């Protein structure tokens, strides 16, 4: 078992972004502050800064993604990096040795950064550990989502969004609703909200979609969505994968929507100025009603915009800026 922290070096500097868990509050705030400084860039005529000029950023997407990949690509390009997108066929990549072989080959092409999306929990950690073993301490890994484990840049952009609309984390009650068990977004968000010190984290969902040991994570669990939403400041809805309907986890999309879908009527129980977030892509009519998704309290598209600034911040901090 490695006794070092896999993403922070001996000087306390971020070397990879693999997970929110274990990151000190100062690093999270530094990323959010850096993202703020990049946000105005989009309004300028020339949207680029030269912070990553001459660096090669490899987008390694072993699992499909549109939004995350695109926003990482835009972020890297605005930092003037050379961006190489690799869509790696799922079947050939599911064998692990192929994964590390791929990494070795890309290292030989003088990659500076890997942005990795993979269907298996721990894939980004495996790559970071492999780079360490091979002596590539100058190559950085950004986890763009690994299995059910973590999606740290999503959590960071969610925190950015919350701070943008609510200013201070301390007084907030934040509800995370839906399929927590299978959600890397939920895991990373719970870790980030805990590190940033919100007053209360509420987890809402049926017992089939909640992981074990949630009580140890300093959260309050609700199975009744109305009770869970009462007077909260932020509602984070999670995507419900269609395949969850096939087994014994849930009876139907209809029943799920009835119990755990966010409708205007349920949202009315939250504070009047509560914001509604969703990592996308949304299933309208399954976890969220269109009136809410398109309504005044939804900040879902702001999340996407902030996502670019947050990813720029992560890439530039990892590159040593």
């Amino acid at each position, binding site marked *: 078992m490695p006794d070092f922290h896999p993403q922070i070096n001996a000087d306390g500097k971020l070397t990879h972004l693999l997970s929110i868990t274990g990151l000190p509050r100062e690093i999270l705030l530094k990323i959010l502050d850096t993202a703020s400084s990049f946000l105005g860039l989009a309004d300028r005529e020339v949207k680029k800064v030269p912070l990553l000029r001459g660096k090669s950023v490899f987008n390694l997407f072993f699992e499909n993604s549109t939004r995350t990949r695109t926003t990482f690509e835009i972020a890297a390009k605005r930092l003037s990096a050379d961006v190489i997108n690799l869509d790696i066929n799922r079947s050939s990549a599911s064998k692990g040795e192929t994964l590390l072989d791929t990494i070795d080959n890309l290292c030989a092409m003088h990659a500076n950064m890997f942005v990795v999306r993979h269907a298996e929990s*721990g*894939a980004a950690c495996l790559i970071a550990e492999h780079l360490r073993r091979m002596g590539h301490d100058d190559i950085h890994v950004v986890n763009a989502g690994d*299995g059910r484990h973590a999606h740290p840049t999503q959590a960071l952009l969610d925190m950015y969004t919350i701070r943008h609309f609510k200013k201070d984390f301390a007084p907030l009650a934040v509800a995370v609703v839906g399929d927590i068990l299978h959600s890397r977004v939920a895991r990373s968000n719970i870790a980030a909200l805990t590190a940033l010190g919100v007053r209360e984290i509420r987890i809402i969902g049926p017992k089939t979609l909640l992981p074990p040991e949630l009580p140890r*994570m300093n959260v309050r669990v609700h199975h009744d969505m109305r009770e869970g939403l009462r007077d909260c400041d932020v509602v984070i809805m999670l995507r419900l994968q269609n395949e969850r309907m096939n087994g014994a986890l849930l009876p139907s999309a209809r029943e799920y929507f009835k119990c755990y879908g966010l409708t205007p009527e349920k949202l009315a129980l939250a504070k009047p100025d509560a914001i509604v977030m969703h990592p996308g892509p949304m299933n309208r009519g399954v976890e969220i009603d269109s009136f809410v998704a398109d309504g005044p309290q939804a900040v879902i598209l702001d999340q996407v915009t902030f996502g670019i600034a947050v990813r720029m911040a992560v890439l530039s901090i990892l590159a040593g800026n």
Partner: protein
Amino acid sequence: MNITIKNARVVDPRNRIDRVADIFISDGRIAASAAAGQEIDASGLVACPGLIDLCARPGDLATDLAAAVAGGVTTLVSPPNLNPVLDEPERVERLTKQAESLRLARLLPLGALTRKLAGEQLSELAILAKAGCVAFSQGQSPVMDTGALLHAFEYAATFDFPLWMRPQDYYLSRNGFAHNGAVSGRLGLTGIPVSAETVALATLLTLATDTGVRLHLCCLSSAAGMAMVARAKADGLPVSCHVGAHHLHFSESAIGFFDTAARLDPPLRSEDDRVALREGVRAGLAAICSDHTPLARDDKLMPFGSAKPGATGLELLLPLALRWGMEMGLSLPDILAPLTNLPAAILGRDDSGHLGVGASADICLFDPDANWHVLPENLQSSSKHTPFAGQAVVGQVKKTLVGGEVVFSV
């Protein structure tokens, strides 16, 4: 060939012996008195019955039987899920002949309870027993149909063949990689709940009660499971069990940041479970096995869920048991009992697992104070993956005798 082992600290758990003495060997057996022949000076060494490992799956037979004797293991029981599966008498005979010809450790095969371990049609148990199978098992494969399982128990009970079963419910464990708990929750790894073990145990113990079969439960992993076995024994059921040595030392936290060396089957469970397993062994409820698993170099170099479960174990069994025993404050006879006397009793062997006159001269000579580092590249087994890599352990085997012959010596 006669051998006298001189000045050893003789530790024989079954006969409650722990004193410096000489051991006399004649015609492959422990003798009452010396006869002219070879002398081995064992000053400073412990001489104990050769270790009996109730669960070790050999990969390459010659390599792993050499690894066994290097670890002081003189008898190992192999589950039937080898390649090919041990469901045909010819395969069993070929394997045991090959093992015998190597003149290293003794190999006792478990026969496949069902053909191809598919859990449907019974294997030819009586014929397989004649071919050398000491008991029958499904390895890690399930019998999904509980009706078929009942028939298998009834048929085995007909001939008084023992059944060695892994208590793991198929549906509750099939997609999981780790204990369903704090670590799997944090890392987003699909969990295997303790109920996978207890549900299966409830079925197995009920069927054993109803059929009278002699049941041995393999590789327990949980406190709840150990408590069920303890209760069944207290109720007079002819039931026994073993636990893997790794489970005495590690809990789920060994996974850390996805360390695939800590991916085991059954999974490493919570700290409370680990403590209960350690207590269960101390109480004499369970033997300790290596659960040695053949693994190739690349088998762990992948994301946690794709990595193969298991670890090397034959050469670590003794030091891991010594570490457990010393941490528990036990005497050497009590530490060695779950590696010698108890497994021999589980196997129903009267002539091994002890050093009484007439017993087979299967002996392990080890230095109880020697420190060594677990360096995978230095292990004899071709299976190198271990969560103990890099750790210092105490207890080093110096000589191993099987049937009165020195088969390992450093």
